[in-house]
Every structure is written in C-alpha cells, then in structure tokens.
C-alpha cells in the first residue's frame, strides 16, 4: 500500500469475525513476511499475504474483501507450513472469499469468481462436472470465446474431452445439499 492511500472505514468487529469463521489464529502474526516471501503468486497480488493479515488486525474490512489477492491465492498452503506462528493463511483466504461473496460487493478480480460460480452451478445441476459443459458456460460468462480452442481440439482428438454429461442419478440429493447451505447463509 502506498503512504496516505485510502483504506476505508475501520470495523472493529472484523477481526473477531474472521477469527471465528476461520477458526485460525491471526493475533500471533508478528509481520516477519515469511509467508509473502514464499508465496508463488505474490507477484500477481495487489496486497501481499502478510499485509492481508495486518489489514484484518486493523479491521480494514472493505480493503480486504475487495482486493484481488483473495482470488489469486492458489490455496497452496506454502505460507501456513512456513509461518513461525502457524498462521494458516490459506484457511483465512477461504473465509475472506466466502465473506466477499456473501457481502455481494464488487470483486477485485473478474474471472476467478466467475469460474467458481460456473463450477458450482455445474455441480448443482448435474452432481458431477465435465470439462466441456464447464468451458461452454465459462466462455458464455467471460466472453473469451476463442481462448484455448486449438488446445481443446487437441485434447478432443486424444479422447480427453467427453461430450455428454456423466451419468448421475442422485441429483435431487445434491440439490437438497445446495438448498440447505443457501438457506443457512440467508440465516
């Protein structure tokens, strides 16, 4: 963050909320930056992992939930195993993404959240996911129609792309699971 940059309101309940929802410790971070030093995707983030932790401590809810970092984090768990204080940032990132989605604001990264929602829709509809169905939906939503068509053709020729949805007969059960979770969220 640049000096003097706007960081938004401070919200005192944010830290305890993140701690509660994630079940992770956040207080014990002493900003040694080991997490950020070993993060494979730090170069593409707008806020580094150790800074995310600091922002949570300060209650900068807006800043954290609208950043790009939470969508770029690849859940690789490298930071957590190396942290001297066992701060499991991958788990905390999950909580932040869940919160950002529930808050319904603008996301700091466009296509990653689109990918997740297309993926979950596919499970909700079919119980299982098949790549072609996923890619068709994804292209419709991201409008990147030409991306990877040559590669897709190569994979098709090698028998890697199935054309029809996989058989699955417990679709009702899966819809029920989604219903319960969606109801739970509306609380």
């Amino acid at each position, binding site marked *: 963050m640049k000096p003097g940059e706007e960081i938004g309101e401070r919200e005192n309940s944010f830290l305890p909320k993140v701690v509660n929802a994630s079940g992770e410790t956040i207080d014990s971070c002493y900003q040694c930056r080991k997490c950020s030093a070993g993060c494979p995707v730090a170069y593409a983030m707008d806020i580094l992992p150790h800074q995310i932790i600091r922002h949570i401590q300060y209650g900068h809810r807006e800043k954290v939930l609208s950043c790009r970092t939470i969508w770029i984090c690849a*859940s690789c*768990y490298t930071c957590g195993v190396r942290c001297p204080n066992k701060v499991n940032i991958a788990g905390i990132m*999950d909580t932040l993404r*869940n919160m950002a989605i529930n808050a319904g604001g603008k996301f700091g990264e466009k296509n990653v959240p689109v*990918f997740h929602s297309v993926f979950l829709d596919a499970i909700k509809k079919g*119980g*299982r996911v098949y790549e072609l169905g996923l890619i068709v939906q994804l292209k419709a939503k991201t409008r990147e129609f030409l991306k990877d068509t040559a590669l897709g053709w190569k994979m098709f020729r*090698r028998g*890697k792309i199935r054309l029809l949805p*996989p058989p699955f007969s417990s679709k009702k059960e899966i819809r029920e699971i989604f219903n319960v979770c969606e109801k739970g969220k509306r609380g």
Partner: protein
Amino acid sequence: MKEVSYYPGCSLHGTAREYDESCRGVSDLLGIKLSELKDWNCCGASSAHCTDKDLSIALAGRNLDIANKGGRELLVPCVACFSRLKAAEAETEKEGVPIRYALDFFSDEPVIEEIKKRLVRPLSGLKIVCYYGCLAVRPPQLTGVKEYENPQHMDKLMGAIGAEPLPWSYKTDCCGSSLMLVRTDIVKKLTGRILSMAREAEVDCIVVGCPICQANLDTRQGELASETGETYDLPIIYFTELIGLALGHRDVKKWLSRHIVDPVKVLSARGLI
C-alpha cells in the same frame, strides 16, 4: 484378492482418463479389486471451499457417507479430491474408513514389495524428477506426510521400478492449480519455472500424481515455447502409467497416446517401449 473402495472424481472421467485407466490397470495386475463408489458426486473441488465452507463439507461428506457404508478403505487418485475428502473428515470428526491418496497407497511397503515381485520391465536408464505439487504433502496435518518440504515416497516408488529419480528443488512448488482456465498467464509463469528446472536437471520426463498438475504442466508447453523461443517438450507422466509399463500392462500405449507432449518418443529412445 484385496478389495478397496474407489473414488475417481470428475477429472478421471474426463481429461485425466489415462490416470483412471492406469490406476485400474495397475491395481488389476497387483490383485487389488477397486469398487467404484456408487453414485459418487463431485467433491466440490476448490470452487466449493472458496465459496461456501458448509457446502464444501456437505458435498465431500456425502461421498464419505457412501464409503463408510461400504466399510472398505477408500482409494482416491486425484489429490485435489483427496484433500477435500480429508478436510471434510477432519471437520465432521466422524470415525470412518481410512481415506488413502493413491500415491501413498502404492508407496506402502507391502505394495512396493508386490510390485517388485511382478516387475517384467525395469525402467533402467529412465531419468526422472518426481513432482508432488501442493496437496500431496500440504497441509501436513491432513496428508500425514512428515517430509513435506522434501518428500521422498514417490522417488522411492519410482526407484523400486528401476527408474532413476534425480534430486531437484521444485518437488512441492505450486503449478497454479485451479487458476488454469481463467488466469492462464499465472499458470504459465509457474509451470514454465518448474519445466525449466526439470530441463536443467536433464531428465526424460516429470512424474506426477495429480490430474490438475498434469494438465497444467502438459498442456501449455506449446504456448510457452512460442512465447519464449525456448524448447519445451517434457512429457508429464502419471506414476501409475510408469508402474503399468514396468509391470508390462498391455494398455500402456493407449494411456500414453492421450498426452499432449508425446511420452512415447523418449520411452522408446530408452528402449522401454
């Protein structure tokens, strides 16, 4: 004959078909019967845990319930599915059947002994690096892997079938995983690094045990080559395919024909196929 439950997961019924086929093929030769879980559902993958924790646990949990009814150890080849199933197990704290990632399962001492007994074509002369990726080792509370910074079990397994695993420092670096389709730029940057390190080690191929790592490393080499002007042509082979080759499985060529970077060339240059 030993019987275990089998959870293939979505990738193994799609782009990672050869991993499914080789898992089944190798188990067959070793006298292990795989019973696919009846009407298993998608484990939710990264999208469920990124979106809604309860949903990710419920989706994975449904599969665990089916497996627990069967009462048999559950074999899971896809490491991403394995990680989600283990996370659901930890969260629900239910006493259930053991959940085993295929690499761990085939690296068990008795299984390795069985493989050695049935070896028909040791892979001598084949230089490899073992790429474990993230979820095969991390988080260690879920995987149970003690040497998570420098794991050895795949190296040992590959050594047992006569291949020569070389040491390298990218065993557990991330490939970009589910950013594959939407932030391909990041995946290319990460896999480009892994591929160049393997090239520097002068190996014949990279050995993997995850459909996402395999796809990320295998499918972008053409683009990497044209963007950098360097050569990228390293085959990315599943450990089960190499075990199948060493055990003389008749379908090995079919499995290998599904790859983007052709593995047959280098294997035949080493006189193995």
